[in-house]
């Protein structure tokens, strides 16, 4: 079996293995879940070293860029293939997934006490779905993974979520389904008309040989873009996100923010832009403006939140606005910035959700007003919270700055007005995060319930430290990651005719 297939389906194997366990073997379930996800991560690491970032320089389509390619016939009649492979962009997102999943599973141990087996099975199935989405080169295969992933996520919110979980889960699934149905129609259109004379779902063929009339590109772009824009989520399709986050368990939020939202932005850079460059040019202005509105809107609304988790959720709207703006700047700086910002957001916002989860486990409330003065009783927690907040604010030397700086630089190059408007977001980010920080950590402890709070446990400390290593790494030496995606981004630019 090839390494990529192994990585994708290892979590499923782990999930199925759980079926063999008896009812009351929670400890064994946790063990299997953690070990499976860790093994998946370890097996995925060689990809990083085996990947050749030089391959596919000046590529005009995806075919020259894909490495670790595997192609097997799946449904011959319709020319549907089990066709997987990775380029730089999908590689770093796949690694982000295998990296974050064990941390999320480890972090779930104290939080999930009910229906333990179901939870970890869902989590592992979810991982397979996410990995499959990033590795798929065949559109139908992609679509299957994309939809399959929804089910475990739906269950995680709906079963292990907070008090209002059913509403949030249904809202999440409805929003997403509406988008993906349109995408399915688009995929079918591509099958019949994408490459003249051939019926194919292969992304490689479509980016190489595809000749899609400019008029049709508009509709196709719109269909795909809607599906992805909901997933990102872009303003004004974002209202499912705060509800989903607030109700989801901590690890669910981490994976939702860390990976699932990236599927939307990944969809744009992998499908929308390279397949429909004319469509992309047509809609670039609109999307950039929506992205900028999202940046400022998300920040302003964040400012007023009373629930810490909701605040972080709205900050995601703002951060993903940066990613989208970068992608639609249509230049190297912007696209590279947007790509690295996907990773940054996964790390920083994942860490923020984890931090909120830490305090929620102790006090079972996320209301900012319940806290105050925590720096005194939980100094280690306060330090981590501050560093992660600063990374989210975009302090140079930490990861967030690299993404924001490149995105803004690219946006400014594309259109100075975009750059200036979006840059004002850096002011608001400082306001909402530092204000929350002050209300939670500074001042005297006024609430008796907080007087005896325990500082970080060993495993919490370890999880945060691991995240922190990457937060600093990307801040100090981003070239490790930027160099992986350069050729893929160049291909997108070539497709755009730049």
């Amino acid at each position, binding site marked *: 079996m090839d390494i990529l297939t192994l990585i994708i389906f290892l979590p499923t194997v782990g999930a199925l293995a759980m079926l063999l366990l008896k009812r009351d073997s929670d400890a064994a379930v946790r063990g299997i879940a953690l070990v499976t996800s860790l093994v998946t991560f370890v097996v995925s690491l060689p990809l990083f070293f085996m990947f050749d970032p030089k391959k596919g320089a000046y590529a005009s389509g995806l075919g020259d860029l894909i490495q670790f390619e595997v192609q097997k016939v799946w449904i011959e009649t319709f020319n549907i293939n089990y066709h997987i492979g990775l380029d730089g962009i999908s590689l770093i997102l796949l690694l982000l997934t295998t990296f974050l999943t064990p941390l999320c599973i480890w972090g779930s141990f104290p939080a999930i006490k009910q229906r333990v087996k179901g939870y970890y099975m869902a989590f592992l199935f979810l991982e397979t779905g996410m990995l499959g989405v990033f590795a798929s080169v065949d559109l139908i295969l992609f679509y299957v993974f994309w939809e399959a992933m929804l089910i475990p996520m739906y269950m995680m919110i709906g079963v292990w979520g907070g008090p209002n979980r059913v509403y949030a889960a*249904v*809202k999440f699934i*409805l*929003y997403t389904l509406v988008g993906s149905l349109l995408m399915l129609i688009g995929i*079918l259109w591509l099958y*019949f*008309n994408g490459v003249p004379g051939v019926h194919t779902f292969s992304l490689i063929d479509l980016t190489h040989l595809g000749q899609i009339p400019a008029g049709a590109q508009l509709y196709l772009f719109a269909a795909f873009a809607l599906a992805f824009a909901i997933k990102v989520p872009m303003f*004004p399709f*974002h*209202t*499912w996100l*705060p509800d989903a986050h607030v109700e989801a368990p901590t690890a669910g939020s981490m994976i939702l923010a860390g990976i699932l939202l990236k599927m939307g932005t990944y969809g744009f850079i992998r499908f929308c832009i390279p397949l429909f460059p004319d469509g992309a040019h047509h809609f670039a202005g609109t999307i950039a403006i929506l992205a900028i509105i999202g940046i400022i*809107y998300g920040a*302003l*609304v*964040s*400012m*007023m939140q009373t629930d810490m988790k909701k605040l972080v959720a709205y900050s995601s709207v703002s951060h993903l606005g940066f990613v989208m703006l970068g992608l639609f700047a249509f*230049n*190297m*700086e912007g696209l*590279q*910035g947007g790509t690295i910002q996907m990773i940054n957001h996964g790390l920083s916002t994942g860490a923020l959700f984890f931090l909120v989860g830490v305090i929620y486990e102790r006090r079972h409330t996320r209301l900012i007003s319940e806290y105050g*003065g925590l*720096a*005194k009783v939980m100094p280690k927690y306060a330090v981590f919270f501050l560093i992660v907040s*600063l990374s989210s604010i975009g*302090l*140079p*030397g930490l990861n967030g700055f*690299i993404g924001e*700086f*490149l995105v*803004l*630089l690219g946006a*400014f*190059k594309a259109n*100075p007005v975009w*750059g*200036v408007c979006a*840059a*004002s977001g*850096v*002011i*608001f980010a*400082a*306001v909402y995060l*530092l*204000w929350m920080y*002050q209300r939670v950590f*500074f*001042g*005297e402890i006024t609430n008796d319930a907080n007087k005896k709070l325990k500082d970080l446990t060993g495993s919490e400390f370890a999880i945060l430290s691991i995240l922190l290593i990457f937060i600093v790494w990307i801040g*100090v*030496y*981003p*070239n490790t990651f*930027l*160099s992986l995606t*350069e050729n893929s981004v160049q291909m997108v630019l070539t497709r755009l005719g730049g």
Partner: protein
Amino acid sequence: MSNYLYLIPIMPFIGFLINGIWGKKLGEKAAGYIASAMIGIAFVMSVTAFFELLGHDPHHRVIEKEFFSWIAVGDLSIPFGILLDPLSAVMILVVTGVSFLIHIYSIGYIHGDPGATRYFAYLNLFVFFMLLLVLGNSYPIMFIGWEGVGLCSYLLIGFWFTDQAKATAGKKAFVVNRIGDFGFLIGMFLIYSTFGTLTFSGAMHGAELFVGSTAIIFWMTLSMFLGATGKSAQLPLYVWLPDAMAGPTPVSALIHAATMVTAGVYMVARNSFLFIMSPGTMEIIAWVGVLTAIFAATIALVQNDIKKVLAYSTVSQLGYMFVGVGVGAFAAGVSHLVTHAFFKALLFLGSGSVIHAVHHAHAHAGFKGDPQDIRFMGGLRSKMPTTFWTFFVGCIAIAGVPGLSGFFSKDEIIWMTFANGHPAIGVIALIAAFLTAFYMFRLLFLTFYGSWRGRKDQEDHLKDSPKVMTLPLTVLAVLSIIGGWIMIPYALGGGMQFEHFLEPVFEFANNFAGEKGHPSHMAEYSVMAISIILAISGILLARAWYLKNPDIPARLANRSKLAHKVLFNKYYVDEIYNFAFIQTFLGLGEALWKSFDVLIVDGIVNGVAKLLGWISSVVRKIQTGLVSNYALMMAIGIVAVVGYMVWKI
């Protein structure tokens, strides 16, 4: 040394790591020594580097080292590199030198505070970022330092974080600075899109060849200057600095007087080659500088908090520096930066010594009062002799008494306003100089002269600070006296060695501006004379009002109640900002969330869901449960889809 330049910023960073990680175990004493030692080593290295630079011939005094590629994307390449030239050499000497003294002082000042190790860790981290700021060879590296010092400022202002007011002051500083940083970012974007590079040498090269529209240079430099107004507390972004006095006093001395707040001046000086190309920006800088100088000076006239007076004085003095660079006298602006670092650090540390003593006196007497209110001081001259005479030196230095450092640097700036054709700015600067002398001596007389205005039991406990605190005061006092002697103008027979040392850095700017002609020494003497007369009158007026007839100020305040109230309340600028910006944005955030998200978008989403629910309740009737019905439906569906596709093909 040149191969080891990177060690200069690394030393304080090591100190930060040691104290940040093991501080609690090391204890307060060791933490203080380690932190000070690291800065001491960095200072020695800076001196070595300085002499090495001096060994080169004046036009080759540039050492540039690149260590690795920080960000490389397409054509954009940002190296992680440092640049040592006369300007950065002066800056690192001032930064490490003054920092060293303040670290030593801090050992005494922060003694007994439970957060002492955290304090030293922050202080070291600050010096690291400050050194990066002045040594960086590109805008982004400078920006790392720029934001980093802002972070340390935030952490140190809110050092006593259990006090919400102090935490709020820290946050205010960070956010207001972020507004400035926004300008810095835009400036960088314009530089990159115009010159295609972000290194200083690249931009300079681009500027030399630049033939495009000066409008772009105007916006470029104006954006950068917005960044400078944030960091260097100029109108309209000065509001954070007075509040920043909530931090420990040595922090006020180091960050909020001597080093960080001068970063804006350094930035303009570093980019003299760009600013000089935009006369419009230069005009704006000079005017913002002089208006800030007089605006802050008027507020300082009536404040009663010893640190508030010094804070507004700092804002005002920074204004002078911007006047200097704004009228094209870059070297003069930097000169004042250096001398101000000496005497203002001295004054702040002196005030810290006073507060320390008064605080202990209060504590001994079991009295809970404000130890910073000068209305309840007086007569400290005999109780704290070393603090007094060093503070006195600071006062005469800032007031512009001839022979001391402040006289030479400030006078050069005022003279250059006239020499370069900005008489209106010069006149306002002179008036502000008069006010400076007045408010500083008001402060001196109220604090140290007369008799103690507190309780008798407190007075008995007043004593001078320990050696570890008075020694740095003495060193700074000496520097405040002699620091200007390398800046003595030709008119007074001096050699202006300092300005000559900096000359190569400003060569492009000076050539661009062209020769202004040599105004006569006579003109220079007259300006100097006026300035001296104004300084002496300011001092004498303060003596008359606060020493000889102490009832005059109260009578005056009574007679012009409105004016006094406006000044005392700092022109109500904070209140105006709060109403115009903060409340507006908070309201906007609330409105967007509650109306747009909850009412409109979710209203539509939930409405659609309800509609679907209704439809499905109707459609449910079709769900007959008969498999043959379903099969029929499916068949119809497939035929429709396939039919459509066949038709399309």
